């Protein structure tokens, strides 16, 4: 069976959906963070796939993915630092406990 663009997109959509369900349903900030990363990678996968199947052979999508990965790495550094700092203050990373801004 030949693997077409639609197969890649289906995998990406599945990854995105799993990631989103993780963000919505999990309570631990670290897991939510990992799910967010998974959604990001789903987007990356579509970019690469579109680039691969581009009839004119443009590589813009693949270049773009490098930028996304770089920025995501930087963002992970900041995000994890925030989570650590938050844990130091509140002794928890469970989101249901982080509701001090509620009215």
């Amino acid at each position, binding site marked *: 069976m030949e693997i077409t663009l639609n197969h890649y997109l289906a995998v990406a959509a599945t990854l995105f959906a799993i990631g989103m369900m993780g963000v*919505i349903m999990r309570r631990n900030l670290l897991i939510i963070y990992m799910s967010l990363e998974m959604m990001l990678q789903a987007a990356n996968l579509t970019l690469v796939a579109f680039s691969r199947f581009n009839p004119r052979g443009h590589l813009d999508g693949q270049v773009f993915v490098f930028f996304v990965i770089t920025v995501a790495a930087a963002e992970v550094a900041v995000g994890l630092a925030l989570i650590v700092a938050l844990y130091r203050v509140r002794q928890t990373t469970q989101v249901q406990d*982080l509701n001090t*801004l509620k*009215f």
Partner: protein
Amino acid sequence: MDIAWLLLLLPLLASIAILVHLHRKPDMAIFASVGSAALCFLIALAVAWGSVPAPASLVWMDFPESAGFPGLRIEAGMLFDSLSKGMLLIVTGVGLLVHIFSIGYMSHDPSKGRFFGGLSIFMFSMTGIVLATNLIMLFFFWEGVGLSSYLLIGFWYQKESAAAAANKAFVCNRLADFGFMIGILTFWVMMGTVSIEPDQLAQCYVHGTQIQSQVQSTLHGVTALIHQSGLITPTPILLTVMVLGLFCGCVGKSAMFPFHVWLPDAMEGPTPVSALIHAATMVAAGVYMLCRTYPLLILSPQGMGVIAFIGCFTAIFAALIAVQQNDIKRILAYSTLSQLGYMVMAVGCSGPDAAMFHLTTHAFFKALLFLAAGSVIHALHEEQDIWRMGGLWKKIPLTFVTFAIGMLALIGCPPFAGFFSKDYVLAVAYEHHPAFYWVGVFTAFLTAFYMTRLMVVAFWGPARTPTAEHPHESPSVMTIPLILLSILSIIGGFIGIETYYHTWAVNQLQATGQLPIDGHFVAIPEANWMIESGIPLLTVLAGVASAWFLYNGRATDPLRITVLARKFYFDEFYDRNLVVGTQMWASVLNWIDGWILEGLVIRGLAYFSVGMGELLKLFQTGSLQAYAFLFSLGGALLIYLTLFAH
């Protein structure tokens, strides 16, 4: 800058200085106020002498001509003619004397600085009225005297009655000023100008007669027959509206019936205020305004009829009430009303010169009477009831003599000033219609009666209370103004005031050579000494004699006429009807304001936004997952809309 502007600037600066700062320093306030009044009097003398020219007018407001709007240019200027010069001398002269008197009268009052500030505002506004060159400027200062009157009536605002009286005066004046405003606007609409300079008024008169002849040429049928019969002169309704509107201003300020109720209550103010504002000058401003606009008034015979009738009615009506009053100041207040009625009647009977003559002499002797009454009240430590006085003549002789001179001048006893002016008014009234004359004569009888009653009860007989046994004569700062005013009241009839104003009236009507000058427009009474002097003198004697026999040696009032003592129940009538009606209407408006405007519109909007906020608040659960869920729902919706919803 022209020196004439100082007439307005000096009192204005004095009042500002006093009200801003000097009211804490009474001596400085007195210096500023009395000093400005004295300087104004000197300038007024120079103006009357003719050595100060009228300053160039300044443009105050300029509304350019545009489509459908004829354009209006309002200037602030000063009008120096015989009429305003005469009135200016009265205002500044009597004003200065009252200022000086007040130094003594108010010496024990802790807030006398404020009092002198009020007097200075009054001098500023009153001078403005006298010198105004147009009705808008006049109206501005007209409201200014209303303000100062309010401030000074309510000077002792701790007393509830004084505060209420101040409100009453202000509300009455505001109501009447609404009519005045209508009159001014009608004047502008009809004539295209608001100027009241003599030559402008003459042009307005010519313009008005043209309008009249247009109306008369379009008459037909029965109305034309009536016109030919000479019974009624048809007048364009707007001309009558204009005249009645202008008169309405006078009705408020000069306290004519039915707005007379505020003036007696205004006696709650300090006595010098009653003398200056509510007897000598401000209440005469209405009469002055009528005389000033006289060429307009004669355009409407119906309007003139109303003026004469209201004046005549007020004269006798107030005199009747004065017969049964017991407060020395209230008697004088009703007598002021009555004399103002004489003046207005004289205007209505085509005698503006008679009105101005009586206004001048009245300013002298009524200021004198009030100041002398003030001296009595001061001597008796704020006692105002004449039945609690008695036997004062030998204890405060100077006050007694000056009061007697004022009283003789008021009742029209020769050779005092009032004799000449009142007889002139009566002669003019006789010329117009004998009915006015006879009512005037009866009023003169009543005047003699109640003034004699006042004299006999307050100054004769034994002292009725302990305070009346030990009065003290007032200091010379108070008695000197009394003496000066007495002299004026004695010589007022001999110094040519009558001729002066008669020349003015004739000149005014001949200003452009186009105005008629005959008995119809300025009454020139025939010399008939029986009508002019004989009958009035006899009635005065009768009044004095009857009051003497009725009141000499009495301890209580032998006459008890409740309807007169209660002032024909006018206050009660107004309270029951007008005030209650107004209050009901006010509460309806209050309901609309409270529930519809504030409740529905303003609060409604507020509650709507608050409610929306409350609703949206529910979405802020504090749960990160809920936000993420809503967010992804929104994203899904967006994708659905862009991809599938076409």
